[in-house]
């Protein structure tokens, strides 16, 4: 029993780390640009499919990443520049942004289906085998996923706090007008943030693909999950999303073990609703 509980905990923390990475991407976009990117799931899938294509050329993991990461960044930046930015002068542009990213999601997901077909694709695992520490068995792949996700997030937090660009991003998130006043090129920051978040969620797609496969519409699940996590953490709060992701990751593992995974979202929404009733602004509710 204790052994099973420990497995559940480990499983929850592992998946939580990837969720955290992806939720941070969404919190970033929402916190900085105030846009809700409905095509977020499609970028998750994009990571998986791009990797699939490059693996098809018999490249190793690192070369594949070296190709996929810039591609994702450009895709994200391009989306902001050509699809979202022109909307800002419209009335009610936030709603228009949701609609247009919805169109983008429709386009991308069905494009994937046309190109790759409906059957799921798999990516090679980076590691196989298990690690034994005491009586606990970890799969090496899971450990690797955890380490990669945590490292990425760690680097990202350092970037935000210590680099000049990072400060600019934080400034735009905290007060967009203030950022304009001090001369920060707001539009470039918006594009940059979209690019980074595409990389974050796309990496999530690559890390999870060996276990959960890549499919044309698999991104919607991720969109909803990232959304719930970000909402729980407090829309736009990076640290909040971090905590929320681990909490919900563990909830998912637990619910999956006891009741079956179909109840996961149900449980997540229950947690979210209860939290919002007590604290309408989410766990941490502010930027930071």
């Amino acid at each position: 029993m204790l052994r099973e509980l420990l497995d559940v905990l480990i499983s929850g923390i592992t998946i939580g780390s990837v969720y955290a990475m992806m939720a941070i991407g969404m919190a970033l976009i929402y916190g900085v640009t105030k846009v809700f990117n409905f095509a977020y799931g499609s970028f998750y899938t994009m990571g998986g499919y791009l990797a699939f294509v490059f693996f098809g050329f018999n490249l190793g993991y690192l070369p594949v990443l070296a190709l996929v990461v810039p591609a994702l960044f450009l895709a994200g930046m391009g989306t902001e520049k050509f699809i979202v930015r022109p909307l800002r002068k419209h009335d009610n542009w936030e709603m228009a942004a949701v609609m247009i990213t919805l169109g983008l999601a429709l386009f991308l997901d069905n494009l994937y289906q046309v190109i790759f077909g409906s059957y799921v694709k798999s990516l090679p695992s980076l590691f196989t085998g298990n690690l034994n520490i005491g009586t606990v068995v970890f799969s090496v792949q899971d450990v690797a996923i955890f380490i990669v996700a945590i490292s990425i997030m760690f680097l990202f937090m350092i970037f935000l706090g210590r680099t000049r660009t990072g400060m600019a991003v934080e400034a735009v998130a905290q007060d967009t007008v203030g950022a304009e006043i001090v001369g920060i090129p707001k539009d470039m920051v918006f594009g940059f943030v979209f690019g980074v978040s595409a990389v974050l969620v796309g990496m999530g797609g690559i890390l999870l693909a060996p276990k959960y496969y890549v499919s044309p519409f698999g991104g919607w699940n991720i969109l909803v999950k990232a959304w719930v996590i970000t909402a729980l953490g407090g829309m736009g709060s990076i640290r909040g999303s971090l905590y929320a992701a681990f909490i919900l990751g563990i909830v998912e593992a637990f619910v999956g073990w006891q009741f079956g995974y179909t109840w996961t979202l149900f449980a997540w929404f229950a947690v979210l609703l209860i939290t919002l009733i007590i604290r309408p602004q989410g766990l941490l509710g502010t930027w930071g």
Partner: protein
Amino acid sequence: MGLTMKMKKELLLLLAIYTVLCLMPLAVHGNLYLMNILITCLIWAVVAASWDLIMGFAGIFTFGQVAFFVIGAFGSAILTRTIGISPWFGILFGGMLAGVMGLLVGLPCLRLKGAYVALVTFAVHMILEPFLKSSVGRTIGTGGSPGIMSIPPLSLGQYEFSSMNLIPPYYTAVVLSMISLLIIYKIINSTWGLAFIALRDSEVFANSLGVDDFKYKLLVFGISAFLAGAVGAFYAHYVGMLSSRILGLDLFLILMVMLVVGGMGRFPGAVIGSFITISVSELLRPLENYRLVIFGVIVIFLVLFLPQGVTGLLFPVKGKSPLTRLGEYFRSRWRTQH
């Protein structure tokens, strides 16, 4: 308050559309496929219009309309099967059930910020499917996974609607949708309606003039849910069977496309959007999977270049926006004080 030019034009457009609709069967009554498509368009037009009412006009971002549609549908189906009342009452019941649910959902939602409302209503949508399939659902008669197979059809006197003669259901759909749209129209153009629009365009501005948003928002939640639920019940009795698969993403996305095509916040955009979207969808069917890819591109183009939708093409918004009117009111107050 007399009818303004804009209101007259919108009403005329609606009447024009409905005149054509009433006359359609003369041309196509033999073609069951087309008749079915038309009825489908009318059903989704009401759902889209109710969604436009709460999102496009009242500016409340929600994803609950499909859920309310389904609640109305299942509610009426179950009630007519178990108690055996007439499906006409079922439609009313379905609407009321959905309406009450709408009020219940609206109550907590309105305390939250915009993005959260969307999430909570989306949650309602997502929770509905497992609920319908669960044992609790089955106990009340939802039929679990396979759903409900035989739902009593509508009937007029002794005559039962059948799938062979689609003219009676067609005219029923015409009448029901007309009533729904007129209700929506009345709401938009009432004093409440202007308050909604002011809220949507600038909540701070409107609040400073004393517009109480909670009551209005709750009302809109309820009414749009009611309409979706009522037409959902009609759908159940028309199609004769119901399963939770209807809660899938496809319907959702197509409804949003309808709003974009028709023009959000432009009456009767939802109706126009519904007909155009479904027609295009059917025309593109031979292209199979490319169909939705093209839809995606169409949506992107429409939002970028035609944000007012097709209605915007026909009747571009000229004349003063509510924000302008509020601004001028503010100015004239200053003037009278000096």
